[in-house]
């Protein structure tokens, strides 16, 4: 994207308007990544905002490559920091994380099918997500929920392709086990046992 190159170049010279165009372009992906990682809308908004502030400060150090991966890597780090801070401060009880964050937030243009998914099954998915180890959750959110390639997930997480593969595999097995605990919510394929 030549246009993106220009926006990055202008941002590196302190052009805030150019940087905000990059924000427009990637804020949905950054916010959704944070939301699935944190399971809390307010925290996710904080993480997204924080990551764009950090990105603006650090953009002079961006040396080409995939800008989206770079931004989302900052977002992923923000969510990690926020979770760590929240846990150490105990400002957020685990209970609050588990209950309030349950339902998947409303999407502007969702089908009736998606609305059902958002309700009960959505909460179950989010609950199972939060039971995963951070790195495994990150791999699963990036690849299965956000649809990124293994390569991009590796760039975002800073891990090797092999590591991403094995994290994703473990995450999928654990998700599958977690979701089997609520068979009544699931499609037929889950009811194997």
């Amino acid at each position, binding site marked *: 994207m030549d246009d993106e190159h220009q926006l990055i170049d202008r941002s590196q010279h302190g052009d805030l308007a150019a940087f905000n165009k990059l924000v*427009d372009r990637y804020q949905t992906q950054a916010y959704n990544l944070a939301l699935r990682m944190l399971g809390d809308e307010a925290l996710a908004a904080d993480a997204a905002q924080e990551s764009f502030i950090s990105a603006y400060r650090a953009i002079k150090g961006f040396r080409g490559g995939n800008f989206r991966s770079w931004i989302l890597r900052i977002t992923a780090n923000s969510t990690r920091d926020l979770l760590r801070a929240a846990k150490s401060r105990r400002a957020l009880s685990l209970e609050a994380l588990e209950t309030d964050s349950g339902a998947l937030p409303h*999407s502007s243009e969702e089908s009736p099918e998606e609305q059902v998914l958002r309700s009960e099954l959505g909460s179950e998915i989010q609950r199972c997500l939060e039971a995963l180890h951070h790195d495994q959750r990150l791999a699963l959110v990036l690849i299965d929920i956000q649809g990124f390639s293994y390569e991009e997930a590796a760039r975002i997480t800073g891990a090797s392709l092999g590591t991403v593969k094995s994290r994703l595999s473990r995450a999928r097995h654990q998700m599958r086990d977690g979701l089997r605990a609520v068979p009544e919510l699931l499609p037929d394929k889950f009811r194997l046992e």
Partner: protein
Amino acid sequence: MWLFKNRHGHWQQRLSAYLDAQLEPLERRKLEQHLASCTSCQEELESLRATVALLQRVPQVAVPRSFRLIEEPMPVGAPWTVRYMVPLRYAAAAAGLLFLVVAVGDLMTSDGGLTGPVPPSQEQDAVSPSPAAAPVTEAASQEIEAPSALSAVPEEEVLPEAARVAPSKAATEPEGDERTLLSRTLGWLAAALGVLFVALAVPVSLQWWLKRRAPLEP
């Protein structure tokens, strides 16, 4: 039995990659051979496939608000500056007070000998630490941190008191010599100039120092 189970484990670890066509051709063919004769691994594969299909249907949600930056974020050093601003103010006030006490004390304890050379050297002492040491150490930069308005506070508060003390003590001393009086006045003038210079140097070097810090990455 253990061997049997372990073999399933071996293949089950590869099912996720198999779903995404991420296996090497040879390994993929071996897995497919195993799947053809193992219902347990087939079921495992289908349940994983269903899990992934479910996750892929999780909708992307709209952002609750724009995350555009309204203004330039504060430089990276800013939070540090803000955090230490209050203690630094006290430190600067204390430093200013100390300087005055030393200067006044020096003026009052040394008698007639206080002529030309001494006040200038004092002025040099007062001036040299701030601009020169500014970028070098953290300790030095802390001194510089305080805004001029604040370092001026102790000056204004202390001077009248010192002025009250000085004449009374001077009155007890049997010195009406005009030369001493002149040197004393000169000494005071030099000290005041020193304080003024520090007060002026502080904001300038602070600004310069912040500019230097700003481009640094986090």
